[in-house]
């Protein structure tokens, strides 16, 4: 297993937001405290029209990163060459600081489940994913980031924990990690593992970005909805993550029940303050 001497991490961008239509107008004004934006790649993989016009405006104003949901890196269907072509073309245009997708599969036999389906954590799946990540990175000419997903099922026959699997993919395929701390928390609750074990198992040198998000409170299974404020246990996990990985680009990710921008700016400012105090403490 090749262990790079120096960290493959790219320069950090600071504190950002996921770009959502609801905030287009407000974000054009460049409100203080938003250092960068993450776009959902699929929203701009369209022939033309208003979405691409807006993209131009944001491209001029912010550092951007591209976040996709359709790579289906874990699927046993062939990689979607048409999708990769379009993604690559968009990246050439947008010149994002980085490109991310999820450590999951989204469909098989040509059917798209439009969901981030968890993988079985086996050596077989690991080898499969590693080989595909390498091919995608060759194709895009850069390292990609893979994000941990929230999951509700686990499969019999697992040979690794989720974090061992993620760490091994990153090391063997030489890719980077987008750690969604809400997803760590949700999956920890649903599967009964300790979130700190997860954080301890992730190679710090490969953690490029954090997602902070909210979830639906539940008695039994926690459902990741990304439609609520960041929950207290997730903030606590964020503090632990900054302790372990340092100043990592951090983003508030809200996918539904989008509040007015100032609400998200408050959350982002809170993240900034938390990270600063942890880093001060460490210095």
């Amino acid at each position: 297993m090749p262990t790079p001497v120096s960290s493959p991490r790219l320069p950090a961008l600071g504190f950002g937001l996921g770009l959502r239509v609801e905030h287009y107008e407000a974000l054009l004004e460049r409100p203080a405290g938003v250092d960068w934006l993450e776009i959902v790649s699929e929203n701009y993989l369209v022939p033309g029209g208003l979405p691409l016009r807006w993209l131009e405006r944001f491209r001029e104003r912010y550092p951007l990163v591209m976040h996709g949901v359709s790579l289906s890196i874990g699927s046993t269907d062939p990689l979607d060459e048409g999708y990769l072509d379009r993604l690559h073309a968009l990246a050439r245009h947008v010149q994002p600081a980085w490109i991310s997708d999820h450590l999951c599969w989204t469909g098989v036999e040509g059917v798209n489940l439009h969901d981030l389906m968890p993988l079985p954590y086996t050596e077989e799946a690991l080898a499969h994913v590693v080989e595909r990540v390498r091919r995608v990175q060759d194709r895009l000419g850069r390292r990609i980031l893979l994000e941990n997903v929230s999951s509700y099922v686990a499969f019999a026959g697992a040979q690794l924990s989720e974090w061992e699997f993620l760490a091994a993919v990153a090391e063997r395929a030489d890719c980077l990690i987008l750690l969604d701390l809400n997803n760590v928390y949700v999956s920890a609750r649903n599967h009964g593992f300790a979130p700190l074990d997860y954080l301890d198992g992730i190679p710090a040198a490969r953690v490029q970005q954090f997602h902070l998000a909210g979830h639906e409170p539940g008695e039994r299974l926690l459902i990741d909805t990304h439609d609520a404020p960041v929950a207290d246990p997730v903030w606590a996990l964020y503090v632990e993550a900054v302790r372990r990985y340092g100043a990592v680009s951090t983003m508030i990710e809200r996918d539904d029940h989008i509040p007015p921008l100032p609400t998200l700016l408050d959350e982002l400012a809170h993240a900034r303050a938390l990270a600063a105090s942890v880093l001060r403490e460490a210095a």
Partner: protein
Amino acid sequence: MSANLRALQQRMAQAVLDPRAPRPADILGDARAGADERLDVYRHGYRLRLAEALRVEFPGLARLAGEAAFARLLAAYVEAHPSGHYNIRWHGDGLPAFLERAPPWRRRPALAAMARLDWALSTAFDAADEPALARAELAAVPGDAWPALRLELQQALQVLPLAHNLEAIRRAADLGEAPPRLRRRRAERALLAWRQAHAVHYRLLDADEAVALAAAMRGEPFAQLCERLATLHAPASAAPRMVALLQAWLDGGLIRGWRIADG
């Protein structure tokens, strides 16, 4: 190579798509939640996600069908048609044809027609950007070239036949107003859907405009468009009408270019 992984993915996908399919035995349950409850999160999420994505694409259909029937119709479509496109929106592509075919909705043809109207507007929204010809560019065409001049129309432009007042129902949905009653027209009307710059538009065509526009879309030369209008108007009014239509098309950004060609 990844035979076990593939088999697991096939079992999982099957179980999500078909609620009556057996639960894959490899899903583990525990004290927090049983295997069925865990699988149900994915089964439920699949249906919810597709229905929510489609709901946004078909506002006219939602008004026409009414909330409850719209939800039933979307659920039936999602059950019958798994999605094949990575862009969830694009699953809407098959809904009009489904409503034309599937009982009980095929007995109300206005539903399928409304779905077509909604989908035409939806696809126009992010269709490829096209140039719009300016009046001055057309004015530069020498007079003797006009009979053989062919207009090049926007690729994204669509003309739909409407037997009902569906455009009024869609308009009410767009404006957030109460929709008018569904009314069958004595004669079918053509609806034009197009995009100008970044705005999607739709309007009914008068019978003569529909004839001339259809001819222009087929690539007929200008002289022939005029002849078609002459069959519908008094001799003196055909030419001014053609000029008026041409101006309306230019102002609406329907024309992307022109060429002179024989035959």
